[in-house]
């Protein structure tokens, strides 16, 4: 095996770096959108509202049972049917592949975040929410002041788990030609025949990205346990989480 990592100081290195930037951007955008979907959907499911229940069910089951990469391709190629033409044309010139990847990843991971949020809310003892209601607090008030602050402790570990999954899944965006890291690795392999070197580097970079996410999660957990004195919640967390996945 003749590897030569010094070539990475040249063009391949620049390519990987630009890929890294795209990967990070993609992960951040998808994360932000997915969290919003997750919180809204998770709360809706937790309420158990008859009217929206089937809708939520279909969405979540669809996402849980179909491969993200096929979803990605599906959204990408069908968007021009679904979106109104002006919107589509605007998006297209704006860098539609990136947008499609963000939307597909957010849509997919939003379903998992929703399950995490719901499980977190379920882990807050039922009496807590009832006590808040018995005091006359409104739904949103109870949610914001009582349910979420307690749920969040339970939420962090599985949330970190899902987030690393999201970061890893950004690599699928290469299938629709988003120039992220894996894409750049393929390009380097194709045109410069320096696959092994590039693969080594991006593997390390992915590990670092995932570890950063885990580290941020731990920071957040530390912050929360300092500022939310909630031993009860921790006890619940220990019980509900198996292998970092909340038992559903």
């Amino acid at each position, binding site marked *: 095996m003749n590897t030569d990592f010094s070539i990475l100081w040249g063009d391949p290195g620049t390519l990987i770096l630009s890929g890294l930037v795209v990967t990070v951007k993609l992960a951040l955008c998808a994360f932000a959108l997915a969290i919003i979907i997750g919180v809204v959907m998770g709360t809706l499911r937790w309420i158990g509202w008859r009217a929206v229940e089937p809708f939520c069910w279909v969405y979540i089951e669809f996402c849980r049972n179909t491969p993200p990469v096929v979803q990605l391709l599906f959204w990408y*190629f069908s968007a*021009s049917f679904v979106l109104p033409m002006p919107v589509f044309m605007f998006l297209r010139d704006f860098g539609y592949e990136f947008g499609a990847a963000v939307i597909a990843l957010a849509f997919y991971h939003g379903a998992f975040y929703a399950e995490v949020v719901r499980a977190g809310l379920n882990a807050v003892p039922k009496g807590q929410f009832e006590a808040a209601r018995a005091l006359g607090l409104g739904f949103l008030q109870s949610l914001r002041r009582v349910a979420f602050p307690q749920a969040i402790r339970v939420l962090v570990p599985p949330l970190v788990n899902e987030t690393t999954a999201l970061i890893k899944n950004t690599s699928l965006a290469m299938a629709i*030609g988003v120039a992220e890291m894996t894409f750049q690795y*393929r390009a380097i*392999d194709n*045109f410069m*025949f320096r696959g092994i070197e590039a693969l080594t580097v991006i593997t390390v970079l992915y590990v670092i990205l995932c570890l950063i996410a885990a580290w941020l999660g731990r920071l957040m957990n530390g912050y929360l346990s300092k500022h939310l004195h909630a031993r009860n919640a921790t006890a619940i967390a220990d019980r509900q989480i198996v292998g970092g996945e909340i038992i559903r």
Partner: protein
Amino acid sequence: QSMIEEVKERGVIRVGVKNDAPYLGFTDDKGQLDGFEIDLAKDIAKRLGVKIEFEPVKASNRVQLLQQKRIDLIIATVSHYRNRDKVVDFTIPYLYTPQTLLVKKGSGIKTVADLEGKRVGLDAGSGSVKKLPLVQPKVTIQTYQNWPEAFFALQRGLVDAVATDNILLAGLRAAAPNPEEFELLGKAGFYGGGFYAAAVREDDSKSRDAINFLLQDQWRDGTWMTLFNKWLGSESKLKMTLADFGDFTVPDWDD
């Protein structure tokens, strides 16, 4: 040991071919591989007196497959580029094709110059990924996993043009259910050209020569012409003429 000896010993030649290039190498409705290159490969195997095994390859992995000895020979729309010569050995060409653009009718794109600020769809592994920006720096390149996907993208308006070998584009257009909606730019759109050649592993001149001789034999006894007419020329759906190949003339191989 050279590839050609190995193959004879084994009794099987493993050929990397395309399965998504209409009329060159593609899967028919029954899932069988068929096309011009497939028939060329079959003929080579016949002349070698060995069985043939096809391995569908993509532009993005065909070289690695060859290097890793997963396949013995590539006949998969590989254009003979100099930088590729560093990693594989090319045979003599079996086809020349200019490179041009496929656009929607009425798009207003007539030449490569019109591509300024437009989006062009390409296969992720095709040479045009590097070449097109050299000709037209102000183009946005969007890559796909294969050519048909790039063509869907054109259909759906995700890109304004698909740019590659004329013959591939003609195949894509002809295979589409609505060919009349698309326009192959032809001569005006030519921005380059390439010799399709078979490739064997680097530093295996013995095998390359063997394949070269077989390719020459195909020219001489008319096999090549028959196959060309069957898939691309007069008897085919494409009805391509020499003009479509940039007035490329058949070379005369002597001993």
